[in-house]
């Protein structure tokens, strides 16, 4: 009896020990992350104060905070952030819609996809920043140009990924639809589209970052507002605090986007029980 109890006891404690070790590991990772961040800030601040680096060129945490407060005071901070967010989200959504539409057409017509394949590959490899000056000439300076720049960076890779995902669906599953009396449209809506959700989600995660890259390129060249504009303006008037503040804000935005997409992905996966 006693022996049995003690065995169960040790098993329970082993399970507990495993859980504890697992939690400790996660706490350690989280605290090291914070420590790294705090250490970087402190080193940066101290180096600037001690004159190891020139805070005119390299700024410092306190200068960044000061800059943020100043931008808040003239109400331009939220305008710049808002504009960049709006343009990025709009580009991202348009990229998603256009990619789904184009890759659907490519899936329907093997001939068209074979014809277009080399063009897609070339357009995908082309550095899109090279196109930005053209967009300005064609579309003028303004939101349209910036959104087109945002779309151009993510679009072609996204189409290729979606189309590849569509093609990779198990052909036997498509045969099943035909044996049940379905046609190509049924194969697409019942198998190809729902079966490609995972690859579409992972492509989407990349796309939001690429859309942000495109929007900043666009704002560099063709904007009066937005974080990209703030960076260019700051560098031209040698207010490098503004540049570095904008970059830090971009870091926060990128992190926010990543978390947002992760959250949406999580919800879709729960809904589809994947």
């Amino acid at each position, binding site marked *: 009896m006693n022996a049995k109890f003690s065995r169960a006891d040790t098993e329970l404690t082993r399970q507990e020990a495993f859980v504890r070790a697992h939690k400790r590991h996660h706490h350690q990772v989280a605290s090291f992350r914070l420590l790294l961040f705090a250490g970087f800030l402190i080193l940066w601040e101290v180096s600037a104060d001690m004159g190891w680096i020139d805070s005119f060129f390299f700024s410092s945490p306190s200068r960044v905070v000061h800059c943020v407060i100043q931008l808040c005071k003239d109400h331009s901070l939220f305008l710049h952030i808002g504009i960049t967010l709006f343009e990025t989200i709009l580009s991202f959504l348009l990229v998603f819609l256009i990619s789904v539409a184009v890759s659907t057409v490519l899936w329907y017509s093997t001939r068209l996809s074979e014809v277009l394949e080399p063009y897609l590959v070339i357009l995908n490899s082309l550095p899109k920043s090279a196109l930005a000056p053209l967009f300005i000439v064609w579309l003028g300076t303004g939101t349209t140009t910036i959104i087109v720049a945002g779309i151009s960076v993510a679009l072609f890779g996204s189409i290729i990924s979606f189309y590849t995902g569509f093609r990779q669906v198990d052909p*036997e*599953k498509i*045969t*099943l639809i035909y*044996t*049940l009396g*379905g046609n190509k449209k049924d194969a697409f809506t019942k198998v190809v589209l729902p*079966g490609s959700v995972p690859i579409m989600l992972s492509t989407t995660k990349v796309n939001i970052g690429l859309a942000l890259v495109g929007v900043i390129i666009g704002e560099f060249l063709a904007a009066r507002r937005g974080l990209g504009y703030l960076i260019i303006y700051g560098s031209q008037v040698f207010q490098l605090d503004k540049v570095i503040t904008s970059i830090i804000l971009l870091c926060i935005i990128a992190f926010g986007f990543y978390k947002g997409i992760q959250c949406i992905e999580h919800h879709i996966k729960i809904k589809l*029980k*994947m």
Partner: protein
Amino acid sequence: MPEFILELKKIGYSYHSMHGEIQALEDISFGVREGEFVAIVGPSGCGKTTLLSIIAGLLIPEKGTIVVNNPDGSLHYPKVGYMLQHDHLFEWRTVYRNVILGLEINHQLTEERLDYVNQLLIDYGLDQFRDKRPSELSGGMKQRAALIRTLALGPQLLLLDEPFSALDYQTRLMVSADICHLIRQTKKTMIIITHDLSEAISLADRVVILSGRPATVKKELPIHLTLQDDSLLAARHAPEFQDYFSRLWEVLTNEGTGGEEIERKVFQG
């Protein structure tokens, strides 16, 4: 009344590629009677699936004809239900939404059809799993769900393309007997492809043996087993089983014809 409800006459089919022509089927002729279970066996890669696709109407034969004699005298091609090698239940749908997939595609979500599906779910013990995902079902239950999906459209002729080959051996023995028992109850006609000789003998009324590529019908062997009890594996314990197995093996491996028919008194279990 004609003997066969479906008769294949000199069916031929070739695959074409830039490397040349591959003749898959050559001069295939055999018939299927109403309510009969026919098993097609043959060496792997001999074109069994091609043959089934032709019968299902997914491929059009290059040579030969298929003659239809419906019992009611009508001329339409019999409604075909096809079961593939894997159950292919979609993980993004519940079990219920999987079994009504065919009805959904054919816009036949009528009360009558759905009642039939619900009755099958109850009869096959899947009713309590209707809102579960396919991954939560056992191998046997998945096959039952795939069978309901096939039966939902009310097919007259069922085609099974090695439907149990993805299962492990033990599950396969039980599931194949179970599924065929359920199909027998529906009194439908069935053609099953298998490379498992014991499966063919235990399930079918007649075995059609194909040769290697290009496939022709080597021999047709009617099966009559004396069943000792009504357990799922009874067919495999029938006294004639081993005999049939040796005969099929001989026909498949040697280029011979398998000698004369088995002279044995017939007991139908």
